[in-house]
């Protein structure tokens, strides 16, 4: 899966994207976020409180319970502030 980070999420994790292999333990967006938080450091800062984050799967807004599949594009970002 291609995992993308935007705004302060990108700054805290120190990169804009990375490839993460899909795995049975990463069934949902929430599972992926928990795995990322467990990495510690900037990842823990970014993913420690999922209430502050939003996600999209394949360019569509998605909740923590959205189910992931191999090849998905998953993005994590703060609540949007455009307009």
């Amino acid at each position, binding site marked *: 899966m291609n995992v993308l980070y935007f705004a302060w999420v990108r700054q805290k994790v120190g990169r804009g994207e990375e490839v993460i292999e899909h795995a049975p333990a990463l069934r949902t967006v929430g599972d992926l976020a928990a795995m990322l938080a467990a990495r510690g450091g900037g990842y823990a800062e970014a993913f420690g409180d999922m209430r502050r984050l939003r996600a999209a799967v394949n360019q569509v807004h998605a909740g923590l319970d959205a189910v992931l599949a191999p090849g998905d594009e998953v993005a994590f*970002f703060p609540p949007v502030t455009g*307009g």
Partner: protein
Amino acid sequence: MSVNIHIQAEDFDVSDEIEALTTETTGAVASFVGLVRGGDDLTALTLEHYPQMTEREIGRIAAEAQARWPLESLTIIHRVGRLTVGERIVLVAVAASHRAAAFEACEFLMDYLKTRAPFWKQEERGGTTRWVEHRDADAAAAERWRKP
């Protein structure tokens, strides 16, 4: 019905955009321009976005407006990159036969852009930068369009 969506670094001209929207059956064009508002030493904003998603999400928002109101055409332009105080950020322009539909759709589109389109603003004040926090008022504004 034409829908024009542009994500760009360049500025836009409101007159030109409105002109391009209108046909012989257009009676009303409602439009909105958002600008970088100064104050508290703000010097500039930098707008980041999620390129693969932005146009698609705005397209979904525009489709929802079309489904709800009898519109002729609409244009949404959102700039990205660094913009200084007084610069235009966003244009929403909606053409319709009658004004109520144009006004409501324009306001709906802005409320949804603010809460769903993947843009993030970073402020520059003096030498420091800060990510703009999401406003609860924007969420509430979008919420009022939800059907019961």
